[in-house]
């Protein structure tokens, strides 16, 4: 939080301590007159006003006097409790890095240097300026804003060699919002290589980078200092200097001390930055009573936090609770009355109460059904009955409100306006029930799921579903279930046995059926059943299940399409990894080319896994071939979170990095000549092996699925998930998607994605 000096107010609080009047020194001889003379009333009032009350309540009673329901209890005591749970999910927040410690950044001394979180509040409609973009020192409109990236992250000197993931994206979005708020503002971003996380991150970066009001400067900021009238001077690189009206420090997220405590309680550990280890190895063996999600596992985007939370929940769902939920078939209706709405429209409560004689259940009157207690009552009502009718509420605004807060998967809600009652509540309720078109009966879907794809997310989803007593049909196009997981695990250096044990625990489960060498023939929906027909191991099979989960994972772009022909010394990272596993690489200079089939205009997303894989392979190669040389040609590395550690190791090991634009050409046969162009020069390298980091491309499979099932494909070629809050639901009812099929991700994310999707599918199927 910003230091107190930041606040321009406290105008009514005198800043000087009142001086105690004293007896003059010459009058103190030969008498015992009192020396200190005491405050006058005026002084006392002034001095007492200096008390900040330690920013806490003084119990003066003013608020209680205003409080109609007398809801204020000044002398409430703390309470101690012992909670005994069957499981624990820990999701503690990280802490915002405090840039105080680096005085060169001017955060302490300059009022107009703020953190990205402060900027977020600064421009918020609920912030200090009501949503206007004004700078804090004097409320002037800033004409130029600088964002300085990687404050408290990617910095070895302060022990933070990790990327805080969200900051680049946040700064890009903030820059965009600032421009929306003030059409004439100019933005400069000082960065160390922008990493715009997210499926659409590259598109966002591209859009902003080519705007004429943005300047991206890849230089280190040396000093920020205050100039005339609150403007700021930023010194950067070798002698660069710029003036800005506002400087935003894109601060990272650090671990809380308590993460260690919970990791220990779960039998786990924290990494060297204090975050809980949530790597693939740990996820595969996750059986303890404590699960982790949110920033405890490392800084992440909000959407990833939610996926993590759903995955953690998957480990701790109540067993087989389906009977608890009523389907709409046993239709029952509970009536609630909003006392406020009824009274203000002059409707007699007894008139509403008379509905009971018509056979309706009556839930009660609440002074405001949209407030805390009312909402709780409605939620309780939905547990007991399928349908709720509220009398005396406002249609339109409040329907949306209730929809957003109540879980209407289990039932529905209808509102009758007070004036609609018109002396005849029964008629009004009937009309409302008719209009709401509740399905009169619905068949329960079977508690089984067909998973298409036996890769990382498919296996994780299967694990989650089996754990919660659902039946699973696992459909895999190849003969090898878990190839993707094995490959990823090998890259991470996880023992083969552990991976096999995990795969075995899924595939040998009594409730799973495996369909290998399978391909999809057709799909149709029959009531609540999803029916798939397949060809598997040569035979035709028809599968009935409650839901289909698409987990087709990642495919590989064919480098030939980009003009690269594979040969014995031009190969992909996957092949190179296998070669390394065999331990027979003799080449002395490996040249890696990143982003083949990614970020190239046609594929506008970053595939996420390739930079990590390239570094892992390069490091393995360096460990095997000591005098080997590795050069990585890239268009800006995309290493998020703790992947930054790999970059540090790579630099230590002497791996070379070359930033280039456009296509990299390969020529020659024996020694290969590689030609790359960077901003202002052309570079020619000679190596004896080229490794292509080919990106994800699974368009063929997605197109096939779309044709056969009717699901939609989004602009980027992934399977579309229209609902933001339900990232696994496709446009087709009953079909869900997880893992790489919905967006690019790395192995551990795909694993969590599978578990999270399992949670969503279970909720859906149990609700019926």
């Amino acid at each position, binding site marked *: 939080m*910003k230091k107190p000096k930041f606040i321009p107010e406290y105008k009514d609080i005198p800043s000087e301590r009142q001086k105690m009047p004293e007896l003059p020194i010459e009058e103190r001889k030969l008498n015992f007159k009192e020396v200190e003379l005491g405050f006058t009333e005026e002084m006392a009032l002034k001095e007492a006003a200096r008390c900040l009350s330690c920013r*806490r309540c003084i119990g003066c009673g003013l608020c209680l006097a205003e409080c109609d329901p007398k809801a204020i209890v000044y002398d409430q005591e703390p309470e101690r409790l012992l909670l005994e749970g*069957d499981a624990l999910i820990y999701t503690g927040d990280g802490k915002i890095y405090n840039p105080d410690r680096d005085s060169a950044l001017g955060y302490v001394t300059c009022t107009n240097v703020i953190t990205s979180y402060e900027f977020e509040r600064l421009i918020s409609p609920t912030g200090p300026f009501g949503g206007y973009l004004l700078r804090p020192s004097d409320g002037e409109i800033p004409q130029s804003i600088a964002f300085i990236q990687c404050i408290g992250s990617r910095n070895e000197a302060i022990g933070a060699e990790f990327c805080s993931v969200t900051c680049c994206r946040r700064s890009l979005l903030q820059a965009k919002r600032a421009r929306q708020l003030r059409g004439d503002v100019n933005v400069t971003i000082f960065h160390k290589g922008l990493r715009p996380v997210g499926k659409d991150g590259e598109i966002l970066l591209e859009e902003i980078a080519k705007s004429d009001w943005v300047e991206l400067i890849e230089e280190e900021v040396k000093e920020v200092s205050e100039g005339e009238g609150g403007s700021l001077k930023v010194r950067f690189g070798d002698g660069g200097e710029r003036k800005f009206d506002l400087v935003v420090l894109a601060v990272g997220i650090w671990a809380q001390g308590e993460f260690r405590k919970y990791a220990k309680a779960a039998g786990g550990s924290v990494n060297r930055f204090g975050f809980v280890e949530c790597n693939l190895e740990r996820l595969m063996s996750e059986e303890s009573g404590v699960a982790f999600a949110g920033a405890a596992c490392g800084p992440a985007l909000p959407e990833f936090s939610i996926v993590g939370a759903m995955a953690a929940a998957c480990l701790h769902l109540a067993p087989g609770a389906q009977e608890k939920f009523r389907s709409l078939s046993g239709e029952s209706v509970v009536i609630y009355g909003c006392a406020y709405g009824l009274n203000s429209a002059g409707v007699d409560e007894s008139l509403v109460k008379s509905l009971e004689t018509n056979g309706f259940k009556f839930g009660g009157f609440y002074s405001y059904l949209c407030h805390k207690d009312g909402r709780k009552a409605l939620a309780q009502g939905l547990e007991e009955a399928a349908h709720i009718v509220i009398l005396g509420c406002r249609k339109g605004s409040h329907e949306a409100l209730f929809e957003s807060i109540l879980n209407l998967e289990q039932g529905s809600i209808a509102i009758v306006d007070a004036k609609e009652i018109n002396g005849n509540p029964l008629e009004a309720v009937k009309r409302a029930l008719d209009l709401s078109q509740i399905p009169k009966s619905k068949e329960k879907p079977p508690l089984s799921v067909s998973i298409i794809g036996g890769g990382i997310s498919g296996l994780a989803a299967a694990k989650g579903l089996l754990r919660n007593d659902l039946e699973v049909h696992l459909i895999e196009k190849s003969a090898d279930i878990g190839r993707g997981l094995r490959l990823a695990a090998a890259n991470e250096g996880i023992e083969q046995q552990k991976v096999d044990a995990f795969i075995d625990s899924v595939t040998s489960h009594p409730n799973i059926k495996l369909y290998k060498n399978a391909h999809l023939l057709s799909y149709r929906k029959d009531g609540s059943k999803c029916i798939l027909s397949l060809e598997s191991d040569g035979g035709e099979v028809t599968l009935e299940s409650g839901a289909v989960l698409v987990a087709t994972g990642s495919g590989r772009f064919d480098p030939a399409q980009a003009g690269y022909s594979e040969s014995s010394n031009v190969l992909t990272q996957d092949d190179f990894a296998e070669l390394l596993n065999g331990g027979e690489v003799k080449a002395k200079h490996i040249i890696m080319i990143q982003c083949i089939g990614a970020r190239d205009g046609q594929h506008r997303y970053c595939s996420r896994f390739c930079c990590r894989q390239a570094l892992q392979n390069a490091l393995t190669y360096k460990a095997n071939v000591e005098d080997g040389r590795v050069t990585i040609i890239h268009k800006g590395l995309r290493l998020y979170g703790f992947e930054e550690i790999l970059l540090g190791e790579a630099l230590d090991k002497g791996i070379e990095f070359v930033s280039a634009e456009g296509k990299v050409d390969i020529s020659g046969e024996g020694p290969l000549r590689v030609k790359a162009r960077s901003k202002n020069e052309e570079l020619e390298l000679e190596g004896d092996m080229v490794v292509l980091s080919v990106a994800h491309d699974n368009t063929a499979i997605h197109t096939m699925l779309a044709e056969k099932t009717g699901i939609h494909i989004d602009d980027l070629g992934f399977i579309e998930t229209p609902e933001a809050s339900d990232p696994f639901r496709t446009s087709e009812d009953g079909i869900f998607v997880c893992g790489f099929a919905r967006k690019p991700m790395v192995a551990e994310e795909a694993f969590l994605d599978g578990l999270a999707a399992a949670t969503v599918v279970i909720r859906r199927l149990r609700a019926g």
Partner: protein
Amino acid sequence: MNKTDQKRLVIVIGGGIAGLQAALEVASSGSDVALVEESPFLGGLFFKEESLTVGNMPALCFASKLINQVLSHPRIRVLTNTKVERIRSGDGKVRIDVKILPSRVNSECTSCGECLLVCPIKPYDSYNEGLMLRTAIDFAGPRSFGGTYNIEKETPACQERCPAHIDIRRYVGLIATGRYEEAIKVIRERNPFPAVCGRICPHPCESVCNRGRQDEPVAIDALKRFVSEYEIAMRKAGKFVPPKPKKDRKIKVAVVGAGPAGLTVAHDLALEGFRVTVFEAAPVPGGMMHLGIPEYRLPRDILMSDVEYIRDLGVEIKLNTPLTREFTVDDIFKQGYKAVFLGIGAYKGLKLRVPGEDEYEGFLDCIEFLKRVNLGDKTKPGNKVIVIGGGNSAIDSARTALRLGCDEVTILYRRSRKEMPANPWEVEAAEHEGVKIHYLAAPVKILGKNGRVTGMVCTKMRLGKLDASGRRRPIPIEGSEFEVEADLIIPAISQQPDLSFLPENHGFEISRWNSFLVDEATMATNREGVYAGGDAVTGPATVIKAIQVGHVAANSIREYLSK
């Protein structure tokens, strides 16, 4: 019905979006959920953010939606403001000990927001990263519909630090709004000597005042003095009605010593309905407040007004009635008193232990000196005065000597200014008035002629390593002796209780510093029904400390007599 009928509970720690989502998922599956969040509010860091999104929804709106779902979910118990103190796991269970801090707003709250309009306290709004102010009633996030209110009212540092635990923040706040009468009542809840303390309290509260980190601490003590004077004026005008003691219990309690500890005991017990008699050796009440503290710091009418207040509660103070070998604690019990509190103070000055100190006239212990002056002997005691010591008594003696017309007053202290235990503002005033202070010097030998003191041999000192008191130990520098002239030497090095009045078979446990040994939780001595406190137990200390001890003793005497 099915196996889920046995209650199953999942604990989710953290109320950010991950915690909210996890709680909702688990609760929807039919489990009970306890959602534990340390801060008063749900939402976490993403609740501050609008730029980052979930799908196309700003993170803030998404968090807000989750919060509302969680708050309305019948199976989720939300514990905000809750700190996890301990986690244990075993036999398939996870157990956590939590402490729920009070939010001071109960479930009757309708989120109308009226309170926010009237609250006079304006702290920084942490939800808005300190960019603006809020009120002491906190409300994180946008107030579109419903939410959680929280009133922050923990014990502030000043109150924590005050030995008598006075609710300082409250009375200062009341003074700021001109409500003096209520303010003095708040002080009187914990302190029966507001007028005295308003003048001479070393106010440790001010040293921890948070305002001091910004500029200077609030002048808490001066404010106390101001309202105490307001009270005195009201009493003089007959507009102030002292509180009525509880119903007469017809039980007699004796207090020995009318100092701050003894009178606090008398005050508390009289209010409780006991009949309290105070036996005082001196011809005046107040103990050290009267005999030790000079008038220029504490005018006698001010002191007497606080004493009168206690007398008005029905406390009888018998002056000139010392305990002696002829009038013992046993005799008090024989007179029908059911309990005795010994607050006899510490009046015996310690010896310098240097050659010559008992040989010459013109050598007067500071307590003797101050007592003599404070009882009315205002004759000039000498021309050149040396005071030895660095405590408040030394400063008082020096400043008193100046006022009696002594030509030259010097304080000799063996450590440096930094280690001096006296209040720094007193030292400053003394120097201002003309007292010379000789640091890093200690007496070696007293010089005299014709039976009268003529001077002293001193040695220079240097500071060595830290000693048990946490100060650097003074070490004499060899060969650095020097002589000073003086016709009055006042040692002011420390005092002990004078226990010469106790008969041989008194039966009390006495410490090696000649003080009473007591159980600190109750202030009970080893003899049944006899309690002790104040300087008689702690050695020389402050009035406010004596008041605190007095409260403790009074409370245990009340409990003892209620049995």
